[in-house]
């Protein structure tokens, strides 16, 4: 195995793909103008063993207008086994990936580094300045790995 000169990791370092959203069709057309609605896709994905987090969003189909956004937000979280009813989330987002109107199919991605132990994955639909059709068929995965961006 060859070691990377930049970060000393080797080609054999682990890489994990974690599905966070199986293909799903969302319809937020009834959202009032300017309003948003969020849904938690994964409350806590363990990422403690990894330095780099890449969110891959497949945009299978959309019926969207300019100004509408499907936002994937990742938040650091740290569940407690002795107090599992409570959610300990850093409200400062770890990273976001926005899906807006445009050609389909396409891939939308974003990368963050140095996450905490777990990540919460939230999808937020943000309506535009008018209530209009807002539909999307999406699927998404997290690509977890160590080392640099080689």
């Amino acid at each position, binding site marked *: 195995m060859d070691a990377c000169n930049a970060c000393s990791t080797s080609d054999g370092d682990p890489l994990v793909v974690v599905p966070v959203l199986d293909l799903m069709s969302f319809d937020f057309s009834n*959202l*009032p103008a300017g309003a948003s*609605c969020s849904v938690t896709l994964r*409350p806590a994905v363990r990422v403690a063993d990894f330095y780099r987090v890449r969110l891959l969003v497949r945009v299978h189909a959309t019926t969207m207008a300019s100004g509408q956004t499907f936002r994937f937000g990742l938040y650091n979280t740290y569940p407690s086994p002795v107090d599992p009813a409570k959610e300990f989330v850093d409200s400062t987002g770890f990273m976001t990936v926005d899906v807006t109107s445009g050609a389909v199919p396409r891939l939308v991605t974003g990368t963050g580094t140095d996450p905490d132990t777990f990540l919460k994955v939230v999808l937020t639909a943000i309506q535009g300045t008018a209530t209009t059709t807002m539909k999307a068929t999406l699927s998404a995965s997290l690509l977890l790995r160590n080392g640099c961006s080689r």
Partner: protein
Amino acid sequence: MPGQIHSIITKRDFDFSNLTASTIEIPIVRAMDITDASEVTLQVRVHSRTITGGSIQVIARAISLTEEEPNTDFLSAGADLASITLNSAAPILHLAALATPFGSMVRIVVRGTGAAASTIKANISVDLIVRTW
């Protein structure tokens, strides 16, 4: 009578407070295979709930997917298989049996119905209890 509990979602928040008088459905599982089931029960645990107007429902619908057109949802136009309205104070357990015939796959959605100036949110977890005999 053998049976299994399938976790559909672990405990999480749903907040429809931003809806005014409209309705939105959020799918939480696209299509779960229940081909071998003789009896299916939808089970909803309400961990917390603040609903001052409007409503939140958990609904089961018949769906079928096919490898010949895998990206298409073939949803039944018939009545919902089961529907649970979160209308009691938390913590509480809601149960509803799926009406027959329920086909080979089931979709679960959470439906929020808005009302002006209302808080409409709940923290729930959802299971399907599948029994065969």
